[in-house]
């Protein structure tokens, strides 16, 4: 993974001191809250329901054991002993004090970490396929270009005060594990007919109040052109994105207003000019230099047999690796009844120790709020699994109905209308039986506590949106969303359900699926085949009965 050199280290150190100065100026009143807010947001610091929340960047979801240990240390020293992994591969601490944040950032800097631009109207953390560098179907590891984009976008003088936030994702495989189509901008590594590798660039995807699926704005952008191209998209957005209405300020609104043809024309025109200028061309040597940081570990020549381990764990949490004798392991942060995505400091330390003991190198954060060990020797799997089980990190439910994505919701978040975590817990407990889970098969439930959709509910096979109905928590069901290559936005089922009704409604929807499905059909497939009406009928059945 990337290693800071003196320039990177100095950059982060200076940014820490800059923020320390900004905090001091806020505390002594030189800056009002209105002036300070965008500055603290650009360092990932929110004011939430109970306390401040600090969002730490995990670039393209990759951590080494030293960094994991530091996160554990910060959880202990400055917070309440745990952290929350997010749908953008970052880590959130829920209880830091403002006065401690500069010290937290200084400690993070010692392990090459930061919280730069994890919030604010600027370019955010660049996320990537959590199986990068390991997946069998990968064309190229997307993380080198993600790192280059990270550097290019850090404290970009022209694009730090955009109309709104800007999220970029990168994938190196045809199977989209990075939710490309729901990002403001996304890069897919592709090969053209001549066999050259380049980027297909998408714009205009997004969740939130008005979800959109992104469209292609550059079919094949050559590697040396990519930064010039990205800058042209940013410029079109900075110049024309709406500034009059916060809810219409994302690029997805502009992309929809202009339409693909006009957007492509404008981006192409800007790209031509920038390219002529030449300052943003990416030399092949530079890309090669960054690529060396992401060279895969020297894979040993190992037998490919899978040793005896818990068949349930094997079935869901172990995935094919491109190297013989290796596998990818999903570390579950979704224990039945637990808080999705949370990990304690002890768990983080233990994982770090496990990584060191088995020389695992890296751990990844997935946007589905699990962790991933990308390069596990199959022969080590039984021991690793046993240890994960001891740590409560081996719930064999990856991709199943209890592998729920949930935002922090009203339990933590100032913006929320309803709680999401208890709903996730209720549903998981209802479907805890593993045989039942396997019978249901692949089912992605995603829960958001408000319209901002941090839980990605629009992309859930079953999406749940918490709303406030006259001060009472209500939950709206959406069906048929997908964040994969077959991207789709879920369709709203109908009126909302109370917090004691929603799990039952989900159960009736599942039962309808089980009775309607053709052999081998996932929930998503059945829904796409039969439409929403059969599900609507059963979901509201209870209310209908109650009405009589």
């Amino acid at each position: 993974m990337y290693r800071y050199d003196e320039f990177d280290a100095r950059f982060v150190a200076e940014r820490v001191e800059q923020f320390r100065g900004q905090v001091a100026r806020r505390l002594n009143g030189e800056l009002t809250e209105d002036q300070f807010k965008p500055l603290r947001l650009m360092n990932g610091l929110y004011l939430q329901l109970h306390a401040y929340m600090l969002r730490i960047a995990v670039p393209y979801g990759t951590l080494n054991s030293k960094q994991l240990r530091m996160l554990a240390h910060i959880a202990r020293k400055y917070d309440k002993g745990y952290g929350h992994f997010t749908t953008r591969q970052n880590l959130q601490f829920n209880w830091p004090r403002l006065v401690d944040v500069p010290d937290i950032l200084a400690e993070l800097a010692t392990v090459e970490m930061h919280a730069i631009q994890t919030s604010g109207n600027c370019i955010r953390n660049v996320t990537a396929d959590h199986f990068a560098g390991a997946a069998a179907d990968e064309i190229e590891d997307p993380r080198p270009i993600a790192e280059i984009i990270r550097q290019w976008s850090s404290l970009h003088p022209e694009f730090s005060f955009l109309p709104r936030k800007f999220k970029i994702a990168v994938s190196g495989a045809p199977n989209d594990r990075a939710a490309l189509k729901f990002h403001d901008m996304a890069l897919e590594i592709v090969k053209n007919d001549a066999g050259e590798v380049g980027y297909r660039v998408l714009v205009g995807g997004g969740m939130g109040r008005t979800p959109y699926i992104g469209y292609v704005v550059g079919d094949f952008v050559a590697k040396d052109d990519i930064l010039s191209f990205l800058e042209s998209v940013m410029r079109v957005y900075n110049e024309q994105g709406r500034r009059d209405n916060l809810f219409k300020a994302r690029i997805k609104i502009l992309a929809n207003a202009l339409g693909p043809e006009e957007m492509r024309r404008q981006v192409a025109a800007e790209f031509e000019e920038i390219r002529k200028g030449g300052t943003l061309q990416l030399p092949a040597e530079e890309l090669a230099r960054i690529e060396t940081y992401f060279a895969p570990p020297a894979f040993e020549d190992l037998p490919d047999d899978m040793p005896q381990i818990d068949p349930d764990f094997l079935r869901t949490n172990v995935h094919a690796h491109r190297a013989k004798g290796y596998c990818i392991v999903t570390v579950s942060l979704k224990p039945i009844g637990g808080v999705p995505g949370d990990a304690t400091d002890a768990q983080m330390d233990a994982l770090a120790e496990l990584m060191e003991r088995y020389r695992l190198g890296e751990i990844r954060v997935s946007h589905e709020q699990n962790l991933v060990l990308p390069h596990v020797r199959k022969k080590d799997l039984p021991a690793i699994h046993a240890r994960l089980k001891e740590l409560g990190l081996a719930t064999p439910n990856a991709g199943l109905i209890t592998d729920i994505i949930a935002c922090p919701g009203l339990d933590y978040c100032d913006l929320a209308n309803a709680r999401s975590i208890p709903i996730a817990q209720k549903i998981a407990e209802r479907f805890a039986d593993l045989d039942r889970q396997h019978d249901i098969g692949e089912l992605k439930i995603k829960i958001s506590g408000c319209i901002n959709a941090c839980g990605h509910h629009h992309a859930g096979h079953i999406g749940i949106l918490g709303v406030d109905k006259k001060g009472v928590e209500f939950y709206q069901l959406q069906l048929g969303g997908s964040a994969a290559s077959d991207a789709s936005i879920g369709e709203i089922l109908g009126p909302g359900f109370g917090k004691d009704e929603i799990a039952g409604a989900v159960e009736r929807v599942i039962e309808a699926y089980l009775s309607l499905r053709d052999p081998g059909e996932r929930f998503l497939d059945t829904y796409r085949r039969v439409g929403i009406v059969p599900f609507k009928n059963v979901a509201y059945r209870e209310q209908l009965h109650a009405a009589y």
Partner: protein
Amino acid sequence: MLTANRLRDGAVLYWKAGAWVERLAEGEIFATQAEADAALAAAQDFVARNAVVSPYLFDVQDDGSPVKEREIIRAAGPSVRDDLGKQANESTSPSWGGRAGEAGSGGGPRAEPPPGSLRSPTSPSGGDEGLFDVSI
């Protein structure tokens, strides 16, 4: 009632007779809108002095419990972690962790803490002279 967050540590505060307390139960309930508005206006002083941010009024019922779920949760702590926040009698000043002497299992009613994982008490550096006493 009137609530705000303390600037330096983000702690949730409630207005009581011209000052701030940390427990909703100790906060002042305004009998009239005029009283509430007057308190909100007075609170701006604390904003100007960089002591608190975002003061706002919210409704409570006759028994003093908040009308909105949001304020119930804000007053207590996350509903999914009864070992955290004000509901766990945690102090928010001066040392943040303040959980020395609390023998917790490490988890709330739902959370499944892994066996053998105990959260160590936290004690960040720095005292907090502040504008407040916890006792106010």
